[in-house]
């Protein structure tokens, strides 16, 4: 019986796990309670794996530089951008955005960028954190 895996298993016993335990080093009884504590400053989070350079996270919009040219809306595959005629500016719904950064590429003024922020989940898709304008 050939079992070449045996050696590998023994070697693994002495190695550190490849998985980064997140958000806590040891599983808390309730993750929601744990995150509440983190919010209150009573506990610390075990940081996530660092994002790579060029990572495409939550979109950032500098409204002062925008000229309201609408080009970003033309290329957005997810229809996540809305034009506001009164102010001639745009509004981005992060919950709908697919993080392709195509709008960043086409913007003639370079006022759209992708930040490394990625912990974006909420229960309300229209929450303040989910709308960029």
């Amino acid at each position, binding site marked *: 019986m050939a079992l070449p895996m045996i050696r590998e298993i023994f070697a693994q016993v002495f190695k550190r796990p490849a998985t980064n335990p997140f958000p806590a080093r040891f599983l808390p009884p309730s993750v929601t309670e744990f995150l509440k504590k983190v919010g209150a400053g009573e506990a610390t989070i075990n940081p996530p794996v660092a994002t790579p*350079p060029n990572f*495409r996270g939550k979109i950032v919009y500098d409204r002062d530089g925008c000229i309201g040219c609408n080009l970003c809306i033309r290329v957005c*595959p997810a229809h996540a951008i809305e034009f506001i005629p009164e102010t001639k500016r745009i509004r981005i719904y992060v919950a709908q955005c697919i993080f392709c950064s*195509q709008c960043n590429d*086409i913007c003639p003024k370079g006022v759209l960028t992708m930040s490394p922020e990625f912990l974006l989940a909420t229960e309300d898709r229209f929450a303040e954190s989910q709308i960029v304008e």
Partner: protein
Amino acid sequence: MSEGTPTKKAPYVVPIGPIHPALKEPVQFLFDMEGEVVKKADFAPGQAHRGIEWMGMRRNPIQIIHMTDRICGICGVTHSFAFARAIEQIVDIEVPAHAEYIRVIIAEFERIQSHLLWAGVAAHELGFDTLFYLAWRVREEAMDVIEYITGNRVNYGLIQVGGVRRDITPEQHPTIQKCLDGYRDLLGKMLNLFLKDTTIAIRCKDCGLLSFEEARNLCTVGPTARASGVPKDVRVDYPYSAYGDLDISPILPTAYGGDINGDVYDRIVVRLLEVAQSVEIIETCLKEMPEGPILWEPKLPKLLSACKKAQGEAVGRHEAPRGECLHYVAMDGHEAPAMWKVKASSYSNLHSWIPMLEGEQLADVPIIVASIDPCLSCTDRVAVIRGAKRDLMTKEDLHQLSVEKTRRIQGC
């Protein structure tokens, strides 16, 4: 018991799916069983249809490119590559050589991660979870490099019509090279762990057989075809992109020394050796990558208007990790294509399940089903739902519908 009396004896019908823990993706199987043996097998795909083509026909090519990234959960570049090639033929775009090399590099990294993912799944289906964890751990190296080059792990967003959106700079070469060296060292170990293991050999040899003739007649593609000895590979047969500059040949199970049996074991052999081939390809591409721009037209509004003006139809093909992937696009002078059709590689391979499964034991079903590396979210393109009823339409049904519509239009 006389003829016609309902019998409580075999064959029994065992349904598996559409959703079942043993299946990684939704598909329904029906097996006529006699004891443990599958006498007759049938399957019904079409459980994961999402209407992506419909969405695409209401969007411009630059938007569609990002949707193609999301057709498959594993292949982040395959579909965008094939789609971009179709558009480039219609609009008559010449992709800069530098960009072609970057496309090939990322496509081969994709093959590495996809084959290792498959190897892990195969080990898991056999109940060999230690090997599953090992395969998925080493797969992360490729995922990390993909993330390093493109910015994200799964939806790379790398391909643009007429080139790529991100460059591979000389500063990035050492990191990529380190990953490749890692895989080169690892390959001997992986071959040893998978192919020398007695349990894997017992479970996979002579299991799920697909003969050369069956593989050819059913038009199977990719590693499934090659494991049965059909030497086909789009990269070699119809060289495109930078593949024309490379010296590659399709990998057959004989490359590992043995005969061609067309069993599950051979499919493992082919995929593992293809990982080694991809490492070689990436290395050559890194060395020989010519300098130049990465896009045919960096000004996207110009690209959009060029696409809008174009008329014609084309087929874009790419050898995905699972075999040939094909996109048909027709443009008629509008923003959005008049027609867009996706044929994923698994679509060609699903039919080979029937000859593979018949005559095998029920316990072999999971590994045989997994052995063609099916990807159903890519494949499912048509589902018919009327009210609460859901059914499949035959050619006759469609013909009848068409006749009825003609009558209706004529008003008679």
